């Protein structure tokens, strides 16, 4: 290639500088535009997001499997070193749990008898979809994970995601073969809960730290460290009674809850399909009513 003559350079470089400055302003402006769209029209953003997530989930699925295998091997090696102490602890726990099982059987029978006496409406049945955690963005701004199950597996927006330990979060976005779970600790997460034996109502609000905060607790409520926190079922999104965690700190600055879920070993999530007419169905009902109204005016 020929080198450009001196005069061409003199003309080209200010032009180039202008063009690059313009491009920077344009793209920063576009980014701010996207930010605004994200706040006002969440539908478009969500659609795009789920489409992109659907595309990369198969890749993440493939990559995360060897990572899982590797971390599994490390876990196993670790557990070998403390087999005997663990065995002892498990035996003690087993003995204790057998007692609890007897109590649970008795209570279940009693509960069934009382329900039949009082003609109580039975809770809707629960079904589960089990999915692997394939993506964890990390960082300071979000607490979400991606799972490798989506609409085609029966996952729906708003469903609860649980591990064996307790509630982990809820489904925030659903693609065809992937879904995003908003964890309890995310800054956007709000879960209606009941606290302690007194079953005081409150809202568990995440703030991107490991210990979410209890908000809107009644003035008469007495909360102590160690109180159990479970879902209340209010709002109809989550089934009531899912274990969440224990109160870990009570201070002037607020009441903190330590979730039961082991975030580092959350490899598989169970998505609870709790067939209940909650807020999401309400949205559908409103939509249907509007459609009906629109059809009525057309006629």
């Amino acid at each position: 290639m020929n080198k450009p003559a001196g005069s061409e350079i003199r003309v080209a470089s200010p032009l180039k500088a202008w063009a690059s400055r313009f491009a920077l302003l344009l793209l920063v402006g576009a980014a701010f535009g996207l930010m605004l769209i994200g706040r006002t029209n969440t539908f478009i953003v969500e659609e795009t997001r789920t489409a992109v997530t659907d595309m990369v989930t198969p890749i993440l699925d493939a990559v995360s499997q060897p990572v899982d295998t590797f971390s599994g091997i490390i876990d196993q090696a670790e557990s070998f070193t403390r087999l005997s102490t663990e065995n002892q602890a498990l035996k003690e726990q087993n003995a204790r749990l057998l007692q609890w099982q007897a109590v649970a059987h008795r209570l279940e029978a009693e509960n069934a008898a009382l329900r039949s006496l009082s003609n109580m409406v039975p809770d809707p049945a629960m079904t589960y979809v089990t999915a692997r955690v394939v993506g964890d963005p990390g960082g300071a701004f979000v607490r979400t994970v991606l799972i490798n199950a989506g609409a085609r597996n029966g996952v729906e927006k708003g469903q609860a995601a649980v591990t064996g330990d307790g509630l982990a979060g809820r489904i925030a976005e659903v693609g065809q073969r992937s879904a995003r779970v908003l964890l309890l600790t995310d800054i956007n997460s709000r879960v209606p809960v009941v606290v302690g034996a007194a079953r005081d109502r409150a809202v568990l609000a995440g703030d991107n730290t490991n210990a979410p905060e209890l908000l809107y607790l009644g003035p008469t409520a007495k909360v102590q460290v160690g109180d159990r926190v479970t879902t209340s079922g209010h709002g109809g999104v989550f089934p009531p009674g899912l274990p969440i965690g224990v109160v870990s700190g009570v201070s002037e600055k607020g009441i903190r809850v330590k979730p039961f879920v082991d975030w580092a070993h959350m490899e598989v999530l169970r998505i609870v399909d709790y067939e209940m007419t909650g807020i999401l169905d309400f949205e559908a009902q409103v939509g249907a009513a509007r459609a009906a109204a629109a059809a009525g005016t057309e006629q």
Partner: protein
Amino acid sequence: MRQEEGVWHRLDVVARSISPFFVTLLLVLLGLVPLRIADLSPIVPALALIGVFFWSVHRPDLMPIWAVFLIGLLQDLLTGSVIGPGIVGLLIAHALVVWQRRFFLAASFAVIWCAFMLVAAAALAVTWLLNCIALLAYVDPASLFFQYLVTMAFYPCLAWAFLRGQRLFQR
């Protein structure tokens, strides 16, 4: 035969010129893989920032500003955060490097690493501020600070790998 060589040569040139973009996209994906290590998730390094900075310094012709925008967009879409702050952060890192072009031309590795500390601090600070505004909430910057430190520590490793790759390509 000559024709074939021409095709291969052209493919080679294309592959070389788009590899920085695709490697940085790969870094975005890599940042999403769950590592199952306790307490690591909140402080994962900002890998895309490293990629964008490295190629803006060493091959600005192969990391144009629209590529930076696309990388930022994909990152914000995939991480599930607000769309925008991450893009602006990367664009600022790119713009700072382009602005100080002459300085980077003569700089040694250690100096570039020090410059990365400043550029990354500016980019992450802007990302944090915009996130706080978009979420209408105060996000605790503590984990971002640790994320920043981890990113600093990761830079030499990744830069070394990129330089190796570049030399391999140039042979």
